[in-house]
Every structure is written in structure tokens, then in C-alpha cells.
């Protein structure tokens, strides 16, 4: 077993195990804890798949940002210490069985696919030749330039640049920020004291 395969097995097992633990846990904070482990080891899987930038973004934005936000939500909505809103066992079992069935369907169809070997070298060694170094190509694609494309038959020589989504997402984030801050802040008008909770 090579080092990479070993690391992959470790992190994949951690990811799956903590994902299952998220489902099984009863308190929300434990769920959040397992979710952090799961997403963190997913980031490690990204590093292993030569996607350094995505892995780091996953750590920074997902684990360090979104999940902290979720935990904040947990704390602000806890009506008592270690609030438990349990699920009935039967429900979980049924859902688990259906889930297993679906997992089987997905995996059965996916594992049968004869994946085509990439015609071009994969994302690892475009442009710079360094392994796992997708920083420059990623940045260029966000500007709209794709130096490595145009090799596949039927592909545009210019390649798909991602300037538009990159810019439009900022508009989206602005709108979302406005909406979320509107919902989260107190109403500006004076509210009778007895209605404030």
C-alpha cells in the first residue's frame, strides 16, 4: 500500500465515519463537532486529489466560516443546555434503510462506468507542470482565460472562462448579505417592551 493510498483510506474512513456520526448524534453541538471532522477530512481528501486551493478554501470558508455560523445558530436558538430534539428510532431506521438502498443504486451504477481516461493531462500539471498546483490556472480561469484548453476535439479553443460567475456571485453575496442582515437585526421601530423576547 503506497503512502497516498494509506492516507486516502484514513481520511476517507474518517469522513464517512463522522458523516454517519452526524446522523446518529442526538445533540446539535455534537452534530456540529462531527460535521467539522467530516468536512475537515474532506479537505484532506481534496489535498490528496491535487486540489490544494479547493482544500484550503474548504477549510477557510466551510469549516472556519459556514460551520462557525451554524454553531452560532445552535447557541442562539438553544432553549436549554444541550437541547435535544430527538428523532424516533423507527423513523431513523426507515430512513437509514432507504438511504442504504439509494447508496447501493448510486454506487452500483457509478462503479460500472468505464471512465474514459482524460485526453489531456488532468488538472494537476496544466500550465506550470507542478503537481497539485492549480493556483495559477484557477486564477486565470476566474479572469476568463484558459491557457490549457482547446485540446479536446469539439472543444472551443478559447475554453470556458469563469469571469461572469465570479463577478455575478459578488452581486449575489451582496444581496444575500442585505437580506440576512435585515432578517437578523431587530426592527428599527420601537417595539413594546413586553413583546421583546
Amino acid at each position: 500500500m503506497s503512502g497516498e493510498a494509506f492516507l486516502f483510506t484514513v481520511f476517507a474512513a474518517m469522513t464517512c465515519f463522522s458523516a454517519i456520526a452526524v446522523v446518529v448524534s442526538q445533540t446539535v453541538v455534537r452534530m456540529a463537532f462531527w460535521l467539522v471532522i467530516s468536512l475537515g477530512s474532506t479537505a484532506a481528501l481534496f489535498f490528496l486529489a491535487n486540489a490544494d486551493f479547493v482544500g484550503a478554501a474548504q477549510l477557510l470558508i466551510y469549516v472556519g466560516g459556514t460551520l462557525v455560523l451554524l454553531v452560532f445558530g445552535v447557541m442562539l436558538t438553544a432553549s436549554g443546555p444541550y437541547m435535544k430534539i430527538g428523532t424516533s428510532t423507527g423513523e431513523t431506521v426507515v430512513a437509514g434503510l432507504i438511504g442504504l438502498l439509494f447508496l447501493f443504486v448510486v454506487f452500483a451504477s457509478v462503479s460500472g462506468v468505464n471512465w474514459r481516461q482524460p485526453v489531456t493531462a488532468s488538472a494537476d500539471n496544466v500550465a506550470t507542470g507542478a503537481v497539485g498546483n492549480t493556483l495559477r490556472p484557477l486564477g486565470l480561469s476566474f479572469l476568463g482565460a484558459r491557457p490549457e484548453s482547446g485540446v479536446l476535439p469539439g472543444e472551443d479553443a478559447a475554453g470556458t472562462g469563469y469571469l461572469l460567475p465570479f463577478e455575478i456571485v459578488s452581486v449575489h453575496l451582496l444581496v444575500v448579505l442585505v437580506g440576512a442582515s435585515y432578517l437578523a437585526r431587530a426592527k428599527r421601530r420601537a417595539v413594546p417592551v413586553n413583546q421583546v423576547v
Partner: protein
Amino acid sequence: MAADLNAYLLVGAVLFVCGVVCMATKRNGIGVLMGVELVLNGANVNFVAFSRYTDLGLDGQVFSLFVIVLAAAEAAVALAIALNFYNNHLTIDVDRANKLKG
């Protein structure tokens, strides 16, 4: 290849299924949102794996980056709404959301 594509896809599928089960069974609103995060992450694992092993190339990585950003935005709004719900109902139990029926 050391860890081949199918292994990555299996991890992605497990994350996806766990997320769906989580969404279906949890009654805590924030717990449901955690399920959504798992589902999105399952998709992300797929994208990154495809970007390494198939013709999808860099597009897969770009896709997963956008997913991360969009998920952050979605979580922000979802939490604001959950907080608002809590302020009005003093609970976050989704099953108590039963005023609207018919």
C-alpha cells in the same frame, strides 16, 4: 492509480446519503441545515475527483469553489431565518411549525 476514482465517488455517495438521511430525520432546523451541508459536500467530493481523473479537468475544481461560496451564502440566510423563527416561536423544532396547514 493509488486511490482510484470509484473510491472517491463512494465517499461522495456516503456523504450524500448521510446528508439526505439527516435532512429527513432531524427535527431541529439547524440539524437539517447540517444535512444540507453534507449533501453539498458529497457533490464537491465528486467534482474534485472528476477534476483529477476525467476530462472535466479544471472545471470541476472551479465548480466546487463556487459551491463552497454559494453554500456559505445559503447558510447565512438560512440561519437568519432560523433565528427569526426562534424569536417568534421560542423553539427550533421543525415539527412545531404547524400553523400553516390545509
